[in-house]
């Protein structure tokens, strides 16, 4: 038990240290190898950490042996470990897939590309594991700055614009978080999350505390791409290199959601958060807006990656909808969908990446009849799409099932109807791709397209298989999600 406490910080430290080393490595093979090995190691450590905290234990590591709350503490319960496992797991599977695709999209200076990738992942993992609110801000900026650089690596010149606009919005979000943290520090004189959680309830409720909560929630909602603050996301995901789109879609917004939940449920009490501000109603309105606007815009797109990006906006809506119910079941559904959506979007973006690589375009009109040329890739896309729609036996079905049960338990039948309608909209946009790829004839003047090599298909199919595996065997996902929800609520009363 104590040994895993000592090892747990290395989940962040390994990519953080490997990043600068990677920048110095020459050629293509070495940076990739170092990145893959360090993410695989971090994945093993995350799995060990999750196993250690699965029965409600909280691990605490004090950096530099400065005891918390003075020093920086890494504090890990089921909620952190669950998110860390998703990040490291998806990254470990996607990196072997991404190698030839990165060779094609970023032919030069791959050392610095992989270095940025490692630093972005280290930042995301740091946000996930840390127990210090100022540390959250620093890691958020570390991962964001690396991400801006990664998006700008896209081959299209619009990638630069997407990165710049994300930089402006992302920095506003992070600075809002910093303002919130400033108010918390002024009120309590501490930055440690556990210490804040004990001091805030005894602090007299004031306007300053309300403002702190408001700034933190809005700041993180920007990073989360919660409708209507999602404008940075579609362009960023569309023009980023394929590996980055897949990784970001599977991890970045999830981490933002996790931190938001950590603040709402753990740092502030849920009894305060949901009564001081009309958070429940506000989150529900934004979630429903995102579900409908995202699904609707996804149906209108002519670019496959942009369609998936808008679908992500809709899926973030499902997660936040679970949160807005303010029940343990709703929070469990949110964590469950956080994990499952990471799996399905990684699979979808990975197969879209193969199409982009082989076909040279992700415009739907260039994909006509491509299903017969690249059957394995497009089948993987269709099966991951099945999971996105939520048809049993897939992971997507499990998360929708839990979300619908949570809404029913809360007596909100109308939400069930809305969830079903947006699921049908997902069916429309996935079916449209399948129809174009399989049923329409390949134009005669279209360039010849070859199926990707099997070594690239294996990681994609691994992700698809995970979607089906976690649709049948839900011990890890449902168990982890309910442990995470319980760890966040921590026996406190929900309003």
């Amino acid at each position, binding site marked *: 038990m104590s040994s895993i406490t000592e090892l747990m910080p290395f989940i962040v430290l390994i990519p953080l240290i490997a990043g600068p080393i990677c920048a110095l490595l020459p050629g293509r093979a070495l940076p990739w190898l170092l990145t893959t090995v360090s993410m695989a190691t971090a994945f093993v450590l995350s799995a060990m950490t999750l196993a250690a905290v699965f029965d409600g234990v909280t691990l605490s590591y004090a950096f530099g042996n400065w005891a918390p709350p003075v020093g920086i503490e890494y504090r890990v319960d089921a909620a952190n470990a669950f998110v860390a496992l998703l990040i490291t797991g998806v990254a470990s599977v996607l990196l072997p897939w991404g190698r030839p695709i990165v060779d094609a999209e970023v032919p030069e200076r791959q050392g610095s590309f992989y270095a940025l990738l490692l630093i972005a992942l280290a930042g995301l993992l740091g946000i996930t594991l840390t127990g210090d609110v100022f540390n959250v801000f620093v890691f958020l900026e570390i991962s964001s*700055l690396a991400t801006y650089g990664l998006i700008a690596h896209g081959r299209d*010149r619009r990638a630069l614009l997407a990165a710049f606009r994300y*930089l402006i919005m992302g920095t*506003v979000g992070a600075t809002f978080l910093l303002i919130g943290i400033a108010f918390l520090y002024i009120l309590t004189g501490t930055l440690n999350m556990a210490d804040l959680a004990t001091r805030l309830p005894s602090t007299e409720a004031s306007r300053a505390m309300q403002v702190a909560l408001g700034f933190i929630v809005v700041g993180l909602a920007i990073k989360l791409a919660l409708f209507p603050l999602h404008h940075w996301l579609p362009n960023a995901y569309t023009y980023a290199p394929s590996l980055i789109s897949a990784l970001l879609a599977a991890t970045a917004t999830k981490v933002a959601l996790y931190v938001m939940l950590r603040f709402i449920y753990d740092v502030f009490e849920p009894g305060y958060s949901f009564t001081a501000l009309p958070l429940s109603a506000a989150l529900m309105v934004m979630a429903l807006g995102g579900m409908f606007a995202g699904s609707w815009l996804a149906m209108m797109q002519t670019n496959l990656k942009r369609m998936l990006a808008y679908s992500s906006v809709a899926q973030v809506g499902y997660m936040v909808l679970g949160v807005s119910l303010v029940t343990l079941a709703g929070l469990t559904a949110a964590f469950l969908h956080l994990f499952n959506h990471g799996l399905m979007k990684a699979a979808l973006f990975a197969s879209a990446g193969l199409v982009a690589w082989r076909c040279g375009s992700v415009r739907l009109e260039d994909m006509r009849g491509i299903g017969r040329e690249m059957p394995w890739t497009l089948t993987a896309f269709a099966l991951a799409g099945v999971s996105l729609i939520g048809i049993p036996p897939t992971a997507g079905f499990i998360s929708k099932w839990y979300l619908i049960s949570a809404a029913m338990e809360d007596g909100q039948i109308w939400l069930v109807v809305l969830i079903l309608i947006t699921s049908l909209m997902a069916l429309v946009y996935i079916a449209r791709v399948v129809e174009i790829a399989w049923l329409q004839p390949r134009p005669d003047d279209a360039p010849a397209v070859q199926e990707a090599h099997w070594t690239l298909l294996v990681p994609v199919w691994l992700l698809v298989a995970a979607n089906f595996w976690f649709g049948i065997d839900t011990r890890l996902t449902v168990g982890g999600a309910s442990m995470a929800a319980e760890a966040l609520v921590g026996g406190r009363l929900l309003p």
Partner: protein
Amino acid sequence: MTVLSFFNYWAVIVLMMIGYYCMIVRGNMIKKIIGLGIFQTSVFILFISAGKVIGGATPVLREGVDVYSNPLPHVLILTAIVVGIATTAVGLALTVRIREAYGSIDDDAIDAVEGDDRA
């Protein structure tokens, strides 16, 4: 004169609004980055003001001084300044690349070129 005694915080609010407005309204990317810098600086002042203890000396341990100002916000803001500089640097680097790719750094002018960019 309670209004004047909160002078720092008034400065914070004014700077924050100037920076934020500049970021939203200006089409020129360099001006957006300048706005971003002003916006971030206002938050730095907020932190540092909170660390001031009235009658407190600079937080360097020495004989004959009992009351010190709180050094922690200064240290935090030192980190935040580094983050701010990194953000500005990345923003400026992107602006240079955008200028090379589009021949303009004006948001509206680029939008006119990329008509179908916003879907």
